[in-house]
Each structure stands twice: as C-alpha cells, then as structure tokens.
C-alpha cells in the first residue's frame, strides 16, 4: 500500500470521513424480526396443498381447459369482478397519432420494412404503433433514413418501445427497415437498454420464474414467467382503457405457463404468443396462482 494510504483511517482526513459515515449510518434494525418477516413471506408464497407436476397433468390439461371453456360459455363470461384492494396504477400513453393508421408492412424476404407512427415517449424510449402482431420482436434493429437506427426494447401486442430518444417527435412517421437477427434476440436484453419484462400495452411486467419456485410447481427451470405488476388502466388520450392483463384478471405473482396453447419460458415466447393473438378476445392464459392452475380468458 502506498504511503498516502497507509493508516488513512488514522489521518485527520480519514477520521473525518469515518465520523461522517458513522453520523449517517442507518439506524439499528431488528434482525430477528427481519428474519421472522422473511420466513413469513416465504411461507405465504408456498403453494396450497400438494401440487402435481405439470408434466404429469399434460393429458388432463386439455380436458380441464375444455371444461373451463364450457363453463365460460355457459356463464357467458360474466365472472364477478374482484374488488381492487388498492387504486389501480395508471400509465399514460400519448395517443395523438393520426387515427386509423395501419401499418404498411411490406414483407421482403428476411428484411421487412415498416411504416409506423410515433405515439410518444415511454420509459426511456419512444412508443410506436407497431408491435408483436406485426412481426416485430425484442432485439430487432430498425434502420431508417439519415442514419437513424434503433432497437426494439419492449414488445406489446400492438405497440413497441424502441431505443431512440428524441430522434423523432410524437406523431412523426417512422419508416424503417427491420433487421431481425436471432443472435441479437438471444443476446442479453440489458444490451438493448430496456426493461424486457415490461409488456406495457398488454398491461403487465414480467420476470423469469426463479428455479426454486419453478420446482415447487413441478415445472422445469425456465418454463414460466412470473407477473411482477399489473397495470390496470392505460390512458388513451383522456380515456382510461383497461388493459388486456387487467381484463384477464391477471394478478401480481401469477406464474404464466401458457398463452394460447404456446408454452411460455421467455419474454420472446410471450411476445410471440401474444403476437399470434390477432384477436385479443381469443386470449387464453394458463397460470399458477397460489399453487393452483387457472385458465384465464377475457371476460
């Protein structure tokens, strides 16, 4: 250690810093109470009753889904609305883009071009009115005129967030070629600077299900996504619109295993599965909630 560092804690400057650190040290904390609270939280997350591993249930899932669908039809889909325990989180989405615009996607082999409108800012990027249903995927590169380049960082069914700040204003037309590179899609999502689990337009934020919890549910590692948060309402202009996630009655801590028959193990799986749902009214989501499997359909 160099001389100027030797015993720095005993120098005047060092002692001053130590005193400052101690002055602003956190207050005492009750570690025993903390441990009890942690154990209680873990206990609350344990599934109710014995859970049969999903793979053993595979032949039964179809039959169970059929029963649920039948009941849904008989019931007319009028399930009672669960009372909200807290005010619904509301996210605002700018919607000043010209009405009735549809994407003009010219699918060239492996190199499609999109024409989309910028709907506003969202998170750390821009929101455009092109999404998973149009074939965009997280990680896709958009290449426009004048050297414009952006990445798709978040995918919703109808909209996507792209990593371009300030390059385009709201209402601007974005015409760009789409470069889909499977390697890029498979790369670390953090490289794209976004929150890959944020499916804003769908109305939920997801994260991978930790292996320990997957095992508790009899699932393989990486076989599901967990819902971190549900955004109940999006403001379209001044009109509050309930999100699909909310209408499905998706809830925080639900474990999503399947969407429209497709297994969900990654954000891409989810984006793909939501993209296949051209008609959102046909959404069918299988989740585990408190250890029990449920089929959620739009009501």
């Amino acid at each position, binding site marked *: 250690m160099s001389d100027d*560092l030797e015993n720095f804690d005993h120098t005047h400057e060092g002692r001053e810093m130590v005193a400052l650190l101690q002055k602003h040290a*956190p207050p005492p904390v009750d570690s025993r109470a903390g441990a009890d609270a942690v154990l209680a939280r873990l206990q609350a997350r344990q599934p109710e009753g014995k859970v049969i591993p999903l793979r053993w249930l595979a032949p039964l899932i179809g039959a169970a889904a059929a029963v649920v669908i039948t009941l849904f039809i008989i019931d007319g889909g009028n399930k009672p609305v669960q009372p909200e325990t807290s005010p619904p989180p509301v996210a605002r989405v700018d919607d000043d883009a010209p009405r009735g615009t549809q994407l003009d996607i010219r699918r060239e082999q492996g190199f499609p071009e999109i024409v989309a409108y910028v709907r506003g*800012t969202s998170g750390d990027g821009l929101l455009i009115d092109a999404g998973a249903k149009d074939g965009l995927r997280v990680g896709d590169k958009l290449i426009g005129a004048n050297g414009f380049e952006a990445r798709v960082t978040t995918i919703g069914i109808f909209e996507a967030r792209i990593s371009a700040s*300030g390059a385009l204003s709201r209402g601007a037309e974005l015409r760009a070629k789409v470069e889909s590179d499977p390697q890029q899609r498979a790369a670390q999502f953090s490289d794209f600077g976004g*929150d890959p689990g944020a499916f804003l337009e769908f109305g939920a934020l997801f994260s991978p299900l930790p*292996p*320990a919890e997957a095992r508790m549910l009899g699932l393989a590692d990486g076989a599901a996504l967990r819902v971190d948060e549900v955004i109940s309402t999006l403001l379209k202009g001044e009109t509050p619109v309930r999100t699909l996630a909310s209408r499905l009655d998706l809830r925080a801590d639900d474990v999503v295993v399947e969407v429209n028959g497709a297994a969900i193990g990654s954000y891409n799986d989810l984006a793909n599965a939501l993209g296949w749902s051209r008609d959102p009214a046909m959404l069918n989501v299988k989740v585990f909630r408190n250890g029990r499997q449920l089929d959620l359909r739009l009501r």
Partner: protein
Amino acid sequence: MTGAPDDEALIIAAKRGDQAAFGELVQRHFRAAFASAYAVLGNAGDAEEMAQETFVQVFQKLEKLREPAAFTGWVWRIARDTALKHIRKHRRMVRVENVPETVNEDDAPHLPMVADEEKAELMAALNELPDDMREALLMRYWEELEYEEMAKRTGVSAAALYQRVCRALKRLREGYDAKNETA
C-alpha cells in the same frame, strides 16, 4: 467443535430445506442487507423492506450458490440490486404519469432519495465506489464488524480488508470533496 454453526453449515442445511437454518442465516446477515439497501435508498423503512425482499430472493437462488464463502458478497449485491430496482420501479411510475419529453436513465446519475444535503453528497460518493470497496467500508463502519469477523465472512484476509477499507476511505474522501467543490 462448539459454538454456533458457521455460514457454510447453515447454507448446506438451508439448501436441504432446513427452515431454521435459513432463518439463522437471515438473522446473521440481515443488517448487511439492510445497510446495502440503505446506501442506495437513504431511507430506513424502504431499506428494511428491501432487506426482507433480498432474503426472499436469496432463498429462491440459494441452489445456485456453489461457493459458500461468496454468500456475504452475494447478499450485499442482491440487496443493492433490489434497492436499485425499487428506485427504477418508482421512477418509471412517476415518469409514465408525467410523460416528460425524453428521459435517458443512463445519462442520469444515481441520486439517493434523501433531503439532507450532506447525507445526499456522502451517499452519492459512496455509490460511486467499486462494489468491493463499498462493501468493505460499510461492513466496517455501518455493520461495525471487526476485521477478523469481516475476514471470516468474506474469505479475504484481515490485512487485505484493512487495505481495502483505507483505499475506500481515501476514495470516498476525494469523491465527497469533489461534490462539495462543485456544489
């Protein structure tokens, strides 16, 4: 052998599903997680909640921990990440409601949510330290551990930890002074 079981024994037992062993581990390291979260948040209430959330995550990821000696550093970092995620989440909610024109999180330095200017500058300087330096410094002065205990927990020699703390203290001083000069 007498006395309390060491961390390694508790980790092995916890991996086998021994709840009491995991509870003991939590109790032993709760203040570390609390301190790590507090260094980010500057708020005891939130830091305590994030410390609890840290150990929920520790439990969920315990199977992946192959080197028990890394447990302490692991807890510090999970607590820090959890606290940062908490801040990001709250920022996001504020941001989408207010819809500012352009926000680039990468350009915005992390600022703890504290009102006291001296404390805010100290914590900003703390958060600029490399992880290993900040952890050693806070173990010594916030957790109030002796170097021998720190060595036992981290697997790093007491002498090396002392050097690390001195370096961290010096760098903290420089960072703090720089903030005061520009203020």
